[in-house]
């Protein structure tokens, strides 16, 4: 039995220790935001946060996750009440097909939580592990800059608390 928290909620999962986190999120917990892209950690569609760091959930086995705190795109807000990152992506209409977007948001969230002042160069470098085949990169970059402003005015901490209680 592996115990960890997902979006602030304690979970107990009975899975083979080699099961990738992505499969547990999608198949056991019905959190379908993170996507299966390549299965090799090469595309970033599966990106979630583990203890505040962006990780490829498709290559992260459950054996590493005892007691860790996972955050997925579902933890950033809801359709009715999107968080600053989600709102920014909506306002910039950054998604085309949308397959990469949950991963993009989670990696950007990890960056901005650590460095709210991230420069354009920081954003480009940090997001370079995440691919978008539709080519909406310029909108994605605008959305992340907008999210940085939104998070500064909202404060990152309150968003985290809201998600824990909800």
């Amino acid at each position, binding site marked *: 039995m592996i115990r960890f928290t997902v979006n602030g909620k304690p979970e107990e999962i009975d899975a083979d*220790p*080699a*099961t990738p986190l992505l499969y547990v999120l999608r198949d056991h917990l019905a959190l379908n935001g993170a996507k299966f892209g390549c299965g*090799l*950690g*090469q595309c970033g569609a599966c990106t979630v946060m*583990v*203890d505040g*760091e*962006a*990780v*490829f959930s498709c*290559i*992260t*086995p*459950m*054996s*590493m996750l005892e007691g860790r705190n996972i955050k997925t795109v579902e933890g950033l807000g809801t359709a009715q009440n999107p968080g600053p990152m989600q709102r920014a992506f909506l306002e910039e209409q950054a998604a085309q097909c949308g397959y990469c977007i949950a991963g993009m948001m989670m990696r950007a969230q990890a960056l901005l939580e*650590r460095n709210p002042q991230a420069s354009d160069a920081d954003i480009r*470098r940090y997001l*370079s592990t995440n691919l978008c085949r539709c080519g909406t990169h310029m909108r994605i970059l605008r959305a992340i800059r907008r999210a940085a402003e939104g998070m500064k005015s909202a404060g990152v901490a309150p968003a985290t608390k809201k998600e824990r209680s909800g």
Partner: protein
Amino acid sequence: VEGWHAPALNGASPSPMPWTVDRLVSYLRKGVDDVHGAAAGPMKPVVHNLSGVPEQDVRAMATYVISLDPRPAAERERQADDVASRGASTPSGNGPGQAMYASACAVCHGANRREHGALRLSQSTAVHLPTPQNLIRIIREGIVPAEGEAGPWMPEFGSALTDQQLTDLVTYMRARFSTQPAWRDVAGEVRRTNRAALQVSRR
């Protein structure tokens, strides 16, 4: 060198598989050799530069480097055969290091490794060095070709692993895949490779 261990090239070379001129030429021009490993850290720009140098010049360098190893060719060949025939080592222990290796690393580096062309770890230079520096950095940062260039690749596991997990994994890999004595202060070395700085320099 810049937080990486640069292995000896002479008879003290830690590589389990002795180098040959052909392998060294190919490594210096392509950045990877399938029985030694991939160029990482400050060796990457060296390969980048040598990839544009005429092959005969790189061959001359390799011939010189190989000549630094005083062991007779027959002895080197015997060592290569020994290492190659060691085959798949049996899984040992059931600690956290074993569990992480089996679930995260063995997919590519284990028995079915050919599918992804990953290195057999009993032949890995990084696992056989006098310090765990390079192995820690490769697991943490992955192996990433320079922007816009093709090259050997491995994903990074540093964001997912805690320091303790990385320590356990590195200690396990040394015990299982190397014939060398255990590294002494793996936990200290893990602490010393500064996480925040690596985030910035990763790419």
